[in-house]
């Protein structure tokens, strides 16, 4: 079970929007790190308060791993916007090229310093590739 919430990404220079480049040992780590990077852009200073955490189950599908990554990130954005949560803990229970099932933990956005509104993860210049013994992903967000 992959379990990540560390800062583990680089920002891609993009004139209008924001992109991330993420590396991880395996695909589960890659999906978790992309989500963690996205919420690192969105908010800062979320305290690790007991009692304010909320755990949600996410299931998403895609026709390949790149589209699955975009769907996973957009589902997290949707849940974050509608439930006013900032997610910081991602546990992927199942991951294939076309399916993901995960438990995600968030705290109420009111406890965080929300910096940036991300409208969506886009398909533009979207990339997942194997590099030596690791995986690399690039995602451009509309902000």
């Amino acid at each position, binding site marked *: 079970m992959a379990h990540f919430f560390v800062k583990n990404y680089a920002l891609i*220079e*993009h004139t209008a929007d*924001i992109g991330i480049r993420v590396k991880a040992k395996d695909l589960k780590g890659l999906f978790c790190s992309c989500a963690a990077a996205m919420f690192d852009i969105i908010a800062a200073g979320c305290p690790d308060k007991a009692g304010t955490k909320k755990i949600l189950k996410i299931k998403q599908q895609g026709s390949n791993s790149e*589209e699955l990554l975009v769907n996973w990130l957009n589902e997290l954005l949707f849940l974050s916007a509608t439930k006013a949560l900032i997610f910081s803990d991602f546990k992927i229970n199942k991951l294939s090229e076309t399916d993901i099932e995960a438990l995600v933990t968030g705290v109420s*956005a009111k406890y965080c310093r929300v910096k940036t509104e991300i*409208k969506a993860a886009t398909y*533009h210049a979207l990339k997942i590739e194997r590099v030596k013994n690791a995986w690399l992903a690039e995602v451009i967000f509309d902000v």
Partner: protein
Amino acid sequence: MSDVWQGSLEKIDDFRWRIPKSYKPGMRVPGIIYANEKLLKDIRHDKALEQVANVAFLPGIVSASLAMPDIHWGYGFPIGGVAATDIEAGGVISPGGVGYDINCGVRLLRTNFQYDEIKDKIKDLVYALFSDVPSGVGTKGDIRVSAREEKEILVKGAKWAVASGYGTQEDLECTEEYGAISGADPDAVSDRAYERGKAQSGTLGSGNHFLEIQAIDRIDDAGLCAEFGLSLGQITIMIHSGSRGLGHEICSDYVKKLVPSLKEHGINVPDRELACAPVNSSEGKAYLGAMRCAANYAWANRQCLMHLTRKSFERIFNMSWQEMGMHLIYDVAHNIANIEKYVIDGKEKNLCVHRKGATRAFGPGHPALSERYKKTGQPVIIPGDMGRNSYLLVGTQKAMEETFGSACHGAGRVKSRTEATRTINLNTLLKELESKGIMVKASGRGTLVEEAPQAYKDVNEVVDVVHNAGIAKRVCRMRPLGVIKG
């Protein structure tokens, strides 16, 4: 972004450049870029020109893939891109050609005040507006609507707001599409989109959205200024916002649906974010119906924002907004796709005109304009950055002939947000703005640096190009006095 675009670019004249159809196999039309030599140097430094070429792949595209002088790298379409597709010839509609903030747009109000009369009140006004107009990430509005009304807004747009007491009939006559585009289909909007847009009516949002108090600092066309009731030193107000979470989710929903259906329709595009479907297909019709809902929501939103602005002024000056002459000059969308008629090769055609970071700029006499603008042409509102200028222009006949009645939408970014954050010091920026007599209040300090004047092209250069190319005509220029950022 340090790589310079090395593609083929032919100079047509001082303000027009062409990417030939032969640049990339699959381009159906050439790319035409409106820019001068100086702007082009910056434009070459990101991937915007490649995106102009990519848009030329869209099935049914006619004439050219167009780019305005504020063009910069977007996702799929460049920001500042215009593309029209012939519906009868299988022309497509692309959600990425509209963007995630559907009907992001801007409105301009006049007032009866002169700068000298209210210069000591700017601080009070900025604080009042910051307190009365909800702004920032994830904000909810004070204008509460029921679930039934939410659906009504998607069809009636700004007309709902006026019927609810947030404006007048005159406001609608001064709004593109009279504030409500027909053909909105609430059934094409997912429950998710409703949920994401809930309780956001009457909120400014964040990022580059703003509310600005300005003074007219240059008259470019005295006759048109007289027609619009504008004079040197007069105070104006500009509001920039969009369709908030509802629009974001509608775009996400339809890009997700259309990416897999590209193969089904036999469409080949070089970027998945250009996902599209024929306008006449079931997917195309559904997106158009949903997009129009978000467009109407955005017009209602800006109408509500204007109402809140008028109320703030009433509180500060203890006068009615009518006494202060706070009339709307115009409201324009700059992220939208519209079905419009144009003559192509001698035949009138129904085209789907995508304006992604571009403003409709209909010339005099156009039937879509209300009587008050039939003679002048449509007002075109071009916001700049928070430290320099903004403009009011009007559309021209030349725009109808060359750019499907379109002009630029702003200054256009030149620095990425990360570069701006790395290179601009917030305190220095605030001091610079203060020295120019500009007061700024923002929900997030990070936004201020990202939106600093240095992150943008000089709007004066951009507007020079559209004016000199003849696709819009300058009316007057404004300078900022007080800025509220989300």
